[in-house]
């Protein structure tokens, strides 16, 4: 071997070793760069990820606000309509147990105490994610928890969590107004998650519970748990205390509400009592009802399905979510239109032979329910004479009647603080042409003037119209929540102020005529039953013809729309609106219900009387 070869080979060796050194150095540089990237550049993100890894927080549910009736006053217990019952959920994390046998052991001891089926529960646990908390049993009583807590060593890894249960103390009486709570649907969650709602939380589904959900719900707290990879607790502390929801005081008077609900027993319909001076709703009931306690209970699916499939639609709050022809109550609108446009006057008389013949290509007869003879507007309202209003309607014309119906707000929402309000409908000539391809006929005008035909209203819309008449043209927004109280009821956090919805410039003559006519109706007309009351009442009945023949022989809805006291202080006045589906006659079906509501109002001292000993509410 020549030296030159040896040297060449040594040089080659050194070159290649140097290349190896460069490779090692490059590799180390890449390692260091990636470590810098992880620790220094993205360190903050990985710190958050590490924190998420080890934190598994348990929510502490906030106590949902209670709901009281209008008599609730600071410090004095009123009627509690909705409250919460303490209750607990038993939970476990399957992976916390050393073995499945140990878990089975513990559960076997627990099953008889907490009353659950061992085998079904174990089967369900096996289907669940073993690292996640599994709810073993909901709504466990306090004494069960005490038993478990005092024998903790027999029940390792069993946890209990606060899970208060909502109680609707008067079940179906307030079902429609207050509503109920429930787990969020996917759609609800998607729309609410932006506002901080969590998927496991409950939310108000209908009624006050829904509309005032943000006030009632409070803020959940949580227990911050540091967990290891097996979800075993390494330490825990209260991360955030729950903030209880605020309490609500309703404008509703429990006694009136109960009386109204009672009075409706056996029928399908709605009763609304409202103070025109403010818009406060004293009572609002709907029949048939349901028990919200059943809806929120765990075994509810059967009940809900049954209720949903019921032809009587018990979930419907008929006071705001159902529309009916206003029938004779609409005669008030025709009268207003006639008087305000000065096309007629109160003393104007018409002769009622029991029918009205509309002249035309073919003569058509429109009937009155009896022959009233000659009468003026007062008597026509009192007797609910249709022929009088046929004549009046033809004089005034459809356009003006429709216009005044709109003025009175019949086709506008009342903006009541409840979700899902429907709006009434007042037709127009254009609408008819568009919908039916026909022009407006005189026959339509005849029907319009007595509230038959195309016009439909909601009970709350009609009641609101009456408020406008009683309150001399000023209509306030109806509302159900009077005050918001702090969770301990020591502070008033909010008070609903009356809010003017519209002001209808009605002339005193018009107002007087309507009120007098309705008063006659009570004294000697279709609402005569109310004459017995200890308060001067006034009102208008209505009998709406419908096309349905659901109940044999009875295909008419019965209305009563009235107020008391007649001629008294407007501030103390209460408007009552009664609707009974298929109630046949307004005077025979709806008026007795109104009578019972008014009696209760009198009994409770709602109306100012001569002696001031009776408290005005």
């Amino acid at each position, binding site marked *: *071997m020549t030296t030159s*070869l040896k040297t060449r*080979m040594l040089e*080659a*060796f*050194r070159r*290649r*070793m140097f*290349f*190896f*050194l460069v490779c*090692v150095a490059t*590799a*180390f540089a*890449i*390692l*260091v760069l*990636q*470590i*810098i990237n*992880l*620790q*220094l550049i*993205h*360190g903050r*993100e*990985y*710190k958050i*990820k*590490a*924190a998420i*890894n*080890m934190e598994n927080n348990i929510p502490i549910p906030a106590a949902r606000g209670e709901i009281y009736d209008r008599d609730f006053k600071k410090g004095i217990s009123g009627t509690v309509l909705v409250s919460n019952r303490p209750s607990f959920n038993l939970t476990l994390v399957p992976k916390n147990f050393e073995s499945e046998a140990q878990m089975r052991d513990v559960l076997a001891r627990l099953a008889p105490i907490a009353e659950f089926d061992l085998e079904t529960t174990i089967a369900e646990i096996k289907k669940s994610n073993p690292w996640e908390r599994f709810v073993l049993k909901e709504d466990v009583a306090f004494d069960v928890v005490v038993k478990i807590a005092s024998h903790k060593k027999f029940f390792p890894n069993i946890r209990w969590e606060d899970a208060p249960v909502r109680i609707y103390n008067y079940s179906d009486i307030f079902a429609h107004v207050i509503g109920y709570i429930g787990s969020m649907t996917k759609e609800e969650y998607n729309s609410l998650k932006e506002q901080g709602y969590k998927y496991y939380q409950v939310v108000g589904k209908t009624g006050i519970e829904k509309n005032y959900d943000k006030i009632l719900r409070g803020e959940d707290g949580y227990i911050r748990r*540091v*967990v*290891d*990879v*097996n979800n*075993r607790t*390494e330490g825990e502390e209260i991360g955030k205390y729950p903030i209880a929801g605020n309490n609500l005081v309703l404008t509703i008077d429990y006694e009136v509400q109960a009386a109204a609900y009672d009075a409706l027993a056996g029928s399908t319909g709605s009763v609304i009592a409202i103070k025109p001076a403010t818009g406060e709703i004293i009572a609002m009931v709907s029949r048939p009802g349901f028990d919200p306690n059943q809806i929120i209970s765990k075994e509810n699916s059967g009940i809900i399905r049954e209720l949903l499939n019921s032809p009587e639609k018990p979930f419907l709050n008929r006071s705001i979510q159902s529309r009916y022809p206003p029938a004779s109550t609409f005669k008030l609108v025709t009268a207003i239109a006639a008087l305000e446009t000065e096309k007629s006057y109160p003393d104007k008389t018409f002769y009622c032979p029991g029918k009205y013949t509309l002249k035309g290509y073919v003569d058509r007869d429109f009937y009155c329910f009896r022959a009233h003879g000659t009468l003026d507007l007062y008597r026509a309202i009192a007797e609910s004479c249709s022929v009088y209003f046929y004549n009046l309607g033809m004089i005034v014309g459809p356009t003006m009647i429709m216009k005044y119906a709109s003025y009175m707000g019949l086709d506008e929402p009342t903006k009541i603080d409840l979700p899902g309000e429907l709006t009434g409908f007042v037709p127009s000539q254009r609408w008819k042409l568009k919908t039916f391809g026909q022009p407006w006929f005189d026959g339509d005008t005849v029907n319009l003037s007595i509230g038959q035909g195309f016009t439909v209203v909601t009970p709350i819309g009609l009641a609101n119209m009456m408020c406008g008449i009683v309150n001399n043209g000023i209509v306030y927004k109806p509302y159900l929540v009077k005050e918001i109280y702090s969770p301990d009821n020591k502070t008033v956090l909010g008070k609903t102020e009356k809010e003017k919805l519209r002001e209808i410039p009605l002339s005193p003559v018009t107002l007087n005529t309507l009120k007098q006519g309705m008063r006659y109706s009570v004294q000697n007309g279709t609402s005569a039953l109310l004459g017995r009351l200890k308060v001067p009442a006034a009102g208008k009945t209505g009998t709406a013809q419908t096309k349905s023949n659901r109940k044999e022989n009875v295909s008419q809805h019965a209305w009563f729309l009235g107020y008391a006291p007649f001629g008294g202080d407007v501030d103390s006045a209460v408007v009552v609106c009664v609707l009974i589906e298929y109630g046949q006659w307004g005077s025979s079906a709806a008026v007795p219900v109104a009578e019972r509501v008014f009696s209760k109002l009198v009994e409770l001292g709602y109306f100012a009387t001569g002696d001031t000993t009776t408290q005005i509410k």
Partner: protein
Amino acid sequence: MLNDIFSRWDRPLVIATFLAVVLGILMIYSAGFDPVEQINKGFYKKQIVWFIIGIVFMVVMSVINYRHLGDYALQIYGIILFIVLLTTIFARPIRGTSAWINFGFFSIQPSEFMKLSVVILLAKYLELRERDIRNFRELIIPALIVMVPVLIILKQPDFGTAAIFIPVMFTMLFVGGADISHLVATILIAFIALFFPMLYTYWEWAGYKGSSIILQMFTHLDVLFTISAILLFIAISTFVAHFFWNQKVLRKIYIPATVISLGLMLSVVIHKWFKEYQKKRILVFLNPELDPHGSGYNIIQAKIAIGSGGFFGKGFLKGTQTQLGFLPEKTSDFIFPVISEELGFLGAMVAIALLGIILYRGIQIALSTRDKFAALLATGITAILFFHILINIGMTIGIMPVTGLPLCFFSYGGSNLFMSMIGIGILNNISMNRSYY
């Protein structure tokens, strides 16, 4: 003689080694500490014992002249290969791998020592064939020396340990003077052989419908086989032509043609013989994200541990990823994330620096000795350590495939520590004797 050792030992190498192992023991202590029960699982105590024994091995290897290793290279290789073979056949599997000989209170992994014995034998062979190594035929023996233990270890199966031999072999052949084109050709063949079956399996798995007809064509076995046969024919004819008409340009045809042809042929073989789950395992090895619940999960947790350590770390015994068990295999394969989480960027850089010093000394020693065997031996040992470090740390920071390779000096485990410290002992020995040869 001992006095001799202590006066001439390679101080940076040995001190860096000691510091690395001590740091490792501290982190094993931390990783083994159970904060709930306030007890330690005691891995660190065993590691201290391994360390002491390791020091003895290191001293012994520093004393015995390394040239004796060369003299007995074949015997050492044969004995260890035999033990590895026996282990593979008879050992009771631990976590599915028959790699350990159980002595009751401890167990030994002979395949760790296989790494050293392969390096010793390769070094000896390359020294003997120094002048002929540029000949392609001379590479067959080194390939056999490496592939026999690799195949046995694959059978255990221990993919990581088997895989480490390949880059070590290439490094030694490269430094030992092999023709670069031979090495490149071999790597190319292996790449082509693996590429097409893997691509096909990946598409199948990911449900990818390739739009490129040409790429799809390559996933058909007959197409691959036909192309391979045509190329082989071209290669053979040009090779024969080469005899009659000696033109350099012909070499440029038949060599690439042979390489591609062999690669494609092998890819057909792999496609036919490998079972679907085996191919999937290789894919997951290459890309852990394909299996987010398996090895992918470990990498995610390791990256969180390292990243969340930040600059100063969370403090000794205070790493949440480590202490709460989110980090898997935290005493062995994932010890680096423990260092990075608890001691932060500073700790990680200290560990990297210590390892860097060791590797740098290794290369320096290889360069400074005038003995070819010693240079190759030092290179081989350095390569073993380097590829362990690269693959292990690279895996934990998510830039290398997931393999069960420990981090030398730091990870818990006697066998790897013994192997590493014996290696350091040999390096020290070469360093002390470099002026004699």
